[in-house]
């Protein structure tokens, strides 16, 4: 039992080592094989061909944080909705359809209340 339990971790360790080795090996090989002739154009940050302006440590507005948070909440809601929608059939066959349906309704309503709360508190207004 014990050996079996820890044996599973050996697989994880081997996988981890192989992963690190693959990346490290690739970088090392490139450094050894490839010629290195840097110039200004080569060293600039490439972002979809747009000319970079300003530093990398740009501040973004704190309001984005609220949007990100709200987005996350409804994203997670979707994650819960999918398996529910798929398995609702099975529950309905077992005669629990109504219960399971209204459980999700309650969940969505609670999240909706959160959204109403955010709107009422003026969180979504961009002054």
């Amino acid at each position, binding site marked *: *039992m014990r050996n079996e339990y820890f044996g599973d971790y050996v697989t994880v360790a081997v996988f981890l080592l192989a992963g690190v080795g693959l990346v490290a090996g690739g970088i090392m090989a490139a450094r050894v094989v490839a010629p290195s002739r840097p110039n200004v154009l080569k060293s600039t940050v490439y972002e979809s061909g747009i000319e970079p302006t300003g530093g990398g440590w740009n501040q973004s507005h704190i309001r984005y944080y609220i949007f990100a948070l709200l987005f996350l909440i409804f994203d997670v809601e979707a994650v819960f909705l999918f398996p529910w929608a798929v398995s609702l059939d099975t529950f309905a066959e077992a005669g629990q359809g109504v219960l399971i349906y209204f459980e999700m309704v309650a969940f969505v309503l609670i999240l909706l209340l959160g959204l109403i709360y955010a709107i009422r508190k003026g969180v979504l207004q961009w002054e």
Partner: protein
Amino acid sequence: MIDYHAILPEIILALTVLAVLVTDLVTKDKYYAAVVGMAGLFATMIPLLTLALCDDLAGCSGELPRVLFGGSYVVDQYAVVLKAVFVFAVFIALLLAVAYLESDRYYEGEFYFLLLAAALGGVVMSSSRDFLTLIIGLELVSGPGFLLAGWRKGDERSNEAALKFFIIGVTGLALLLMGVSLVYGITGTQLFAELAATPQAIVDEPVFALGLLFVLLGFTFKISAVPFHVWTPDVYEGAPTPVGAWLSVGSKTAGFVGLLTVCYLAFPQVSNLWGPALWLAAILSMTVGNFVAIQQTNVVRLLGYSSIAQAGFILAPFGAAAAAGADLQQAFAASVTYLVIYAVMNLGAFGVVIAVGTRLKTYELADWSGMYRWSAGLAILVGAFFLSLAGIPPLAGWFAKLAMFSATIAVGDIWGYSIAVVAALNTVVALVYYTKVVKTAFFDPVPDTIDVAALEGMDVAPPMQLALGITAVLVLVLGVFPGLVSTLAQYSSEVVTAAGL
């Protein structure tokens, strides 16, 4: 199909939490949110009573324990009693918070919402009989606590308290989850009833003991027992004082609920492992808590260290009985007795500290000198609650101590006697600082910096009066008629018999 009567308290409390949020949105006077919350708490008590008294009621069927969701959620005598403790604690904390929040510009509606959500977590924890449900309940208690600790946004201390509490709380949770994952990995189940029936071959595995150790560590954070107690005084001091009251009672009770259920129901067969660990934590908590408390000059910090020491007293019978392999039921009843009485008197003590603090604008003990001159009523309440914490009859604290001592002595053995001796010495040490507060309030001269005439004219806000009145009456009544609490504790300890320990 689902026993709705059994989960009615949770349903009502959850609806209350939502109703508080809606009230906050539609009203201008935010204390209506608190009123809605209190009404919801009263409504929550009704199904708790009907569940407990189901046999005597017409049209009610089904005995406790009521098992739901395949054994994950059980409403038994212990759960009902502890749920009532959570509801009571949050009710008093709400009363204390109303006056406090009105005194300055704080967010109000959200405060009540979070406080009630934390109480819902405690109520869920009391019934959870598997690790997943327990941890969800624990998170529901902790999460709002982190936010509430930082409620005084402009104050650096409060920010520090919130951050410290968050980091330590999350570390505790990580340890707990680590332990649960190890136990789950080796046993393949996280249901307490199935864990209790783990075959001996698996129990003997070192991984099992390691998992248990992590689980225990996770909970010692929550109950602020040594060696994971350092956050307590800082957080109580920095957080708004009503939050300190809730953390020292509600949040701590949640930790004990988790610890008691996990130890008794999930790991009864390894009581020889967790027994000595808790025995040691109890001894260290009382000693460290009490000795550091003596040196405190700030009353809230003093209560913080006192709550560490009290956690030690609550753990004492429980750790000793398990370490010695003695009758666990009496120890369980003693722990619950102590927990209930501690909840009442500590809420009262925090209440009176808030009442004095809102007048003086300081929690330094030196400024409390001669309180009797400017408010005899508050000074008498200080006397009542602090002497009760010290364990002086006829105040409720003496019975908690008595139950604790009789349970540890009944254990017999070196484990029981040694911890009884340590507890006795600690009771004397605790007397030093509790009576110091009372002495300062009654007999010391009023310092020159304090304007007695101005202080005399100030009233205690009505909700505060109600909270102080309820706790003061209870401290007296439970001290004179301790049978009330011991009946409750005996009733709740039936869960131990039911589990066959």
